[in-house]
């Protein structure tokens, strides 16, 4: 694999067993046959409706759910791991290289621990420092990078606002010096006015610390402004992926186009022009045949009901799309 790819997944699947009893057991495919590359140092965005499998894909890369099919390789220049097989000391090492920033800054932080202890906990659990002084040193260093007031390290998290709490969560995720960070809806609970501040901080940390981010969000405007590359998921599948600008200027998949046109415009005179997507994402235990989007796609034809489209290159610069008709549908919007 190419040198500048940090994580490469091939045909990656995650299935959950649901239902009890011998005859009720069912497999829910939350992530289904996903092939994707995440470049080193990139800000990789993952979008799609609720239930499309974004969190599950992120958790698969973090080894927080079992990978039930396909492969994923992690390679950062120091180590190279097969994420489907990894276990034992390698897994222990991987845990400090790959970290998660939680979604809800209110729920994620234990109210009985000081900010210092919250940030220090991963170091202590993973045994990464050998003395309290060393731990303190590391905590202060990362707290400063996350623009936290060092005076505040002795306080308890309830005294902080949403933006400050999210900075504490970020410091905690970064204290073990990870290479790969999954940020799952990390700004969703924040006010617009402070959301921009946290996004700027994440970008700054990405540049300064050479981090690779997987940024999961249902807010497309936020993704457009922060990510270099975006992948769109639908019912466990990747339907389109491209560099951010390419995607936002020339989406090819009917689902991506529908998502974009549903973004409410800030222009009060531009009302109701959006092309509306009807219905909801189907149940993952009762998935449509063929193209999984055909039940909602305005362009579906018979072929879409029987044959599943595969991701194919739409250009040489990393734009890929999975739709039988993307070429025909490229009429000016």
């Amino acid at each position, binding site marked *: 694999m190419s040198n500048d790819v940090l994580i490469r997944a091939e045909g990656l699947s995650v299935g959950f067993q649901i239902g009890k009893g011998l005859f009720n057991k069912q497999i829910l495919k939350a992530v289904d046959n996903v092939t994707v590359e995440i470049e080193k140092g990139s800000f990789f965005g993952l979008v799609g409706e609720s239930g499309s499998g974004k969190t599950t894909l992120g958790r698969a890369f973090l080894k927080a759910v079992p990978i039930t099919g396909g492969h994923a390789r992690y390679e950062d220049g120091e180590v190279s791991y097969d994420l489907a097989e990894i276990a034992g000391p390698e897994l222990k090492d991987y845990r400090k290289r790959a970290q998660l920033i939680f979604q809800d800054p209110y729920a994620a932080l234990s109210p009985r621990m000081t900010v210092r202890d919250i940030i220090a906990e991963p170091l202590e659990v993973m045994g990464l420092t050998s003395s309290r002084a060393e731990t303190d040193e590391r905590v202060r260093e990362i707290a400063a990078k996350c623009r936290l007031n060092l005076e505040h390290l002795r306080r308890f998290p309830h005294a902080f606002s949403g933006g400050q709490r999210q900075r504490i969560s970020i410091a905690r995720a970064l204290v073990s010096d990870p290479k790969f960070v999954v940020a799952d809806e990390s700004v969703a609970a924040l006010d*617009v*006015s402070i959301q921009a501040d946290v996004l700027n901080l994440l970008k700054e940390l990405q540049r300064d610390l050479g981090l690779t981010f997987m940024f999961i969000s249902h807010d497309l405007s936020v993704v457009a402004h922060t990510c270099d590359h975006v992948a769109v998921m639908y019912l466990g599948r990747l339907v389109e992926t491209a560099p951010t600008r390419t995607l936002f200027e020339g989406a090819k998949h009917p689902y991506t186009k529908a998502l974009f046109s549903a973004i409410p415009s800030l222009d009060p005179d531009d009302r109701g022009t959006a092309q509306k997507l009807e219905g909801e994402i189907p149940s993952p235990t009762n998935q449509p045949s063929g193209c999984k989007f055909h039940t909602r796609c305005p362009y579906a034809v018979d072929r879409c009901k029987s044959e599943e489209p595969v991701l194919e290159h739409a250009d040489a610069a990393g734009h890929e799309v999975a739709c039988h008709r993307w070429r025909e549908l490229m009429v000016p919007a």
Partner: protein
Amino acid sequence: MSSLIDVKNLTLKFKTDEGLITAVNNVSFSLKKGEVMGLVGESGSGKSVTAKALMHLNARNAVYTPESKITLHTEAGEVDVLSLTKPSEMQVVRGGAISMIFQEPMASFAPAITIGKQMVEQLQLHGNMSKAKAKEISVEMLDRVGISDAHKRFDQYAFELSGGMRQRAMIAMALSTKPKLLIADEPTTALDVTIQAQVIDLMKDLVNEFHMGIIFITHDLGVVAQTADKVSVMYLGELIEEGPVREVIRTPAHPYTQGLLSALPKLDDLDSPLTPVPGDIPSPLERPSGCVFHTRCSKIVGDACKTTLPQAYQLDESHSAACHIYPKGESA
């Protein structure tokens, strides 16, 4: 258009262990029939408690000042909402003339009762009608909000529905009593853009069809631009700007509103840096003196900002902002 509800000098405090918290300070606004008002502002700015005041629905530790007055205009005459005391009187506003879609998605439905049963009970409480009639209306409403198989859904529990469907069922229940005023507290925040667009369309149809007034509380200025006729912006319990949606979004007058708009990531300019409003909203226990926004404002115009609470300045007959940038006492 005639007035539907008038809020005058609403001041609302909460008694807490740590002292008296001012949640809403001297807020006045009116809404006409068929008008949609967007209520925006940072978390904790007092949007939800203002909305709940309209139904006299705040927690027991709420204290209203004697000057606070909320008048609801109904066909049967004027109702002085804050003077209502008996539960039987309250029914006029709670689920009668006013319906609310709550911010907490599950709060509107009792978990152990089917959606249909709850809708029927509510209808029977507010109108004298047979069970069969109430069921007919409920199913029709579920159908109107785009829930397929409404007959089947009628017998389901809230937890059995997807998020988007639950939200629509909630709207159906709020609308089934044909309220004069619908208060929707963040009805689309937890929804995907696709479902959000459906809900927005639905609400617009309802205004046209039933001519109801809507107060739409949201963080999302895009949603406001798409739905509201006018916008009110709150910050730390103060109404800091009010005006027609076009003016407030295109030419915001208050530094906070300006900051809110420039903090938004915009799709038509991906290269522009994101500019946050600096700092954090102060705790309501440490309410700043003077202009409550002065701790974060980049446009401070002298000591007045720190000492004197700015009064609303009328930029034109319908657009006003409370900020010392504007000349005192000579409103247009």
